[in-house]
């Protein structure tokens, strides 16, 4: 699907650009895009590596584990059919805590381990279990505390207040997470009686 969107944008864009602006502009637009991609990465590298460094301290000091213990009551509500002492439950908590702190590289492995454990305890073959659907819906709705990469991009484009969006983002992400949980809980009633 992404292949389709990408090739459509390149082909249709270049052809139209060629007709309306001429060949020089068309070629220029493509190379401009490539140059700004590299520029953006170099700009992002500083803050991203600083943030990853800080978050690695959070992980190695046990802060993430601490956080994942604190969110257990919420997880019990979201995943009532996953036993609290199971490995699946622990991985789910780590996945959520890591997501919350913006630790993508720690969240995805924990999430995948959780999926594997859920498959075992619920004897899943071809059809998703109820806990799996909830885990993915909450992951997609994003529960991130600080949208670091967006802040960096706002700085790059000379925003007067790059951090302005942090608080509204927390509200918006709470709304989308709440919507995901409510929708999944409603569907659960229909599919798992």
């Amino acid at each position: 699907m992404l292949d389709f969107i990408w090739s459509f944008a390149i082909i249709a864009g270049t052809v139209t650009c060629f007709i309306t602006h001429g060949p020089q502009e068309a070629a220029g637009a493509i190379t401009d895009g490539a140059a700004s991609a590299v520029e953006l990465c170099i700009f992002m590298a500083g803050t991203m590596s600083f943030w990853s460094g800080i978050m690695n301290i959070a992980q190695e000091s046990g802060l993430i584990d601490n956080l994942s213990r604190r969110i257990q009551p919420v997880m019990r509500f979201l995943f009532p059919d996953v036993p609290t002492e199971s490995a699946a439950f622990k991985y789910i908590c780590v996945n959520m805590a890591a997501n919350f702190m913006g630790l993508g590289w720690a969240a995805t492995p924990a999430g995948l381990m959780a999926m594997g454990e859920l498959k075992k305890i619920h004897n899943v073959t071809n059809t998703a279990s109820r806990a799996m659907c909830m885990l993915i819906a909450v992951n997609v709705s994003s529960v991130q505390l600080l949208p670091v990469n967006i802040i960096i991009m706002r700085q790059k484009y000379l925003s007067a207040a790059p951090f302005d969006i942090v608080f509204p983002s927390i509200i918006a992400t709470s709304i989308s997470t709440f919507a995901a949980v409510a929708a999944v809980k409603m569907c659960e009633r229909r599919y798992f009686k």
Partner: protein
Amino acid sequence: MNIIDSISSGLMPVVVISVIAYGLIKKVSLMDSFTKGAKKGLITVFNILPALTALMCASSVFVKSDLSSVIEEIISPIASVFGFPAELVPLLVVKMFSSSAATGLITEIFSSFGPDSYIGRTASIMLACTETVFYTMSVYFNSVNVKNTLYTLRCCIFSILCGAMASAFLAGVM
């Protein structure tokens, strides 16, 4: 307004200080741990560069060709019913497939509207409050060979749309 501003800009320093303080208490070798993580961060950034190049070339030529404004004109009556700016519909769609593609597109939005404009703020909040649904679903479900995903996609898209409408609203009131 002032309180929101200070929460917004104060959060990052507070997180940084608390994490370092916690590390000090737990006697982690801070510099060592930091540099290990910083290296991971650098690798992550440059790992997305090839995809970002592909997608930023596409979005750059597409915006330049004025085709994007034609598409916006078609979509805008539908989007305006939900109080959502039509300029951001492509971003919303692309974000469902790929984070780096969305990054490429938001740079176009920031350079044409400015990051502090209504459109720019809505785009920022929107990207912060959702994840790539198709990517996440395929990675997670493929890892356990699940084919029938039941109601997951429906619920995810519903939550993304709620997040998008909340973003448009919040950007208007902040």
